[in-house]
């Protein structure tokens, strides 16, 4: 059987799991800084608190499963899960929110499925979905970002996407943007910078060839395509501009850090394009016509569901001409 020869890229190198995870952690820093500047220290505290519980639960399950503690703890995958969930939950969340989230992420979504590499679903997104369903009030109350006018006593409120969804009341987009102070140039104040930060980190991961370029490209372009189709010139039923969707909510974090999880994503080149596009489409559909202001967690979980099927139908075939 003729097998197609694949040229390895020049700077190709095999990274160990722990090195990959460390690079992912490093790439989170720009977005984390933006979150801290606009929303205060909450996110940073969340990450430390969740990281602590990630290690506790990971160690506990490893002991129960009679696995080598040091070997598995050193791959940092539990820490990455903790950081990703910490970046997603509101900075003002109560202490038990993080503990519950990490229990579901590490014990249920990761180890009950067989541990790292065996889990069908992205642990951080399983935990996020669980928390969103179980504690809808705590999970939708975000800190009001720096630079948005609000009552002197108010500390938390709805996010920009939330306002866009629920408070627009049939206004044209430019009318609505001029009436609320939550929107900046492209999207929600603060959120533009947070997404720009994650975009920067994502580009670093792409440069280091840690993540596959197909997934973010397909996800972002399907999101842009759909939002351009339904932008409707900013009318009262408009779904919002492509820029608002690209730089709003968790778009960039999802595109580069969450959807690209090597364990739960599609693994074939064509499959990754389909998988990314699916996530982008579902995200847009949930944001504009669904019940939640942002849809990345559910979109990623649905993508995870579909990944094995996508892989099955997109296996590369040996070409006949080689």
């Amino acid at each position, binding site marked *: 059987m003729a097998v197609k020869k694949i040229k390895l890229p020049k700077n190709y190198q095999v990274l160990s799991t722990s090195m990959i995870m460390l690079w992912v952690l490093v790439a989170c820093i720009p977005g984390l800084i933006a979150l801290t500047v606009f929303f205060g220290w909450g996110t940073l505290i969340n990450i430390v608190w969740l990281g602590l519980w990630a290690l506790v639960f990971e160690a506990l399950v490893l002991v129960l499963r009679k696995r080598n503690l040091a070997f598995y703890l050193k791959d940092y995958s539990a820490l990455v899960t903790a950081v990703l969930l910490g970046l997603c939950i509101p900075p003002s969340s109560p202490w038990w929110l993080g503990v*519950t989230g990490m229990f579901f992420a590490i014990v249920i979504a990761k180890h009950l499925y067989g541990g790292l590499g065996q889990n069908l679903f992205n642990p951080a997104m399983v935990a996020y979905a*669980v928390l969103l369903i179980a*504690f809808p009030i705590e999970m939708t109350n975000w800190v009001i970002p720096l630079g948005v006018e609000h009552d002197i006593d108010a500390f938390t409120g709805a996010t920009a996407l939330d306002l866009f969804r629920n408070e627009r009341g049939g206004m044209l987009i430019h009318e609505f943007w001029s009436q609320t102070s939550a929107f900046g140039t492209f999207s929600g104040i603060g959120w533009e910078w947070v997404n720009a930060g994650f975009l920067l980190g994502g580009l670093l991961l792409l440069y280091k060839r840690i993540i596959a370029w197909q997934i973010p490209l397909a996800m972002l372009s399907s999101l842009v395509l759909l939002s351009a189709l339904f932008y409707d010139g900013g009318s009262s039923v408009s779904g919002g501009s492509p820029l608002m969707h690209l730089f709003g909510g968790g778009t960039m974090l999802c595109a580069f850090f969450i959807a690209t999880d090597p364990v739960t994503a599609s693994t074939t080149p064509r499959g990754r394009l389909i998988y990314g596009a699916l996530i982008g489409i579902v995200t847009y559909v949930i944001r504009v016509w669904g019940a939640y202001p942002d849809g990345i967690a559910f979109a990623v979980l649905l993508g995870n569901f579909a990944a094995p099927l996508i892989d099955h139908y997109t296996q590369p075939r040996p070409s006949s001409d080689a």
Partner: protein
Amino acid sequence: MTTNLKNISRQALWHNNPALVQLLGLCPLLAVSSSVVNALGLALATTMVLVFSNLMVSLIRHQITDAIRLPVFVLIIAGFVTCVELLLQAFAYPLYLSIGIFIPLIVTNCAILGRAVSFAAKNPPLISAFDGLMTGLGFGLVLLALGAIRELIGTGAVFANMELLLPFAGNWELTVLPGYPGFLLALLPPGAFLLMGLLLAIKNLISSARPQSEQATEAAVQSINNN
């Protein structure tokens, strides 16, 4: 005879439990187990239907030909389900409203038809009724356990609103965790699936800790002692 009865109970309650091992009747099990009172209501209703349908099927087992046995069995089960539904409407109307559709759905519970076909159609009436009682108990205990766990995790209390079924039990509500914020997921369908999965895991863990051969020997020794 006693060995036989004991064996039936062991099979129905543990080794061949309709909910934990055969995984029959999962739809009502997952849907109605959101609180103890709902679970108890459905457990009692299912057990009643099982006892009487097994008894009736066994009584007419020589008159029914193989070709028509399934429709006849379903008819018998549906008849008793209707009785139970009317009883619930008469004596526990609020509870009937809360578990409503799952009472008529007992007809489709495979555990009941399964017992009718595989046991009652081949055995004498009294022992069939006993088998129905034990199968109902096996199903009901799992239902109650799941209901109690879900109610406790979901609301921090158990035995709330017991007066819907038992008029004297109005003050049975037991707040285990005061000031608990509530965990909505446990009350929703995904929580039912998760906790049912964990119950299955616990059952398998206990079963695998005691190997089958050991259990068999134990049962044999016990039956000798009893005789």
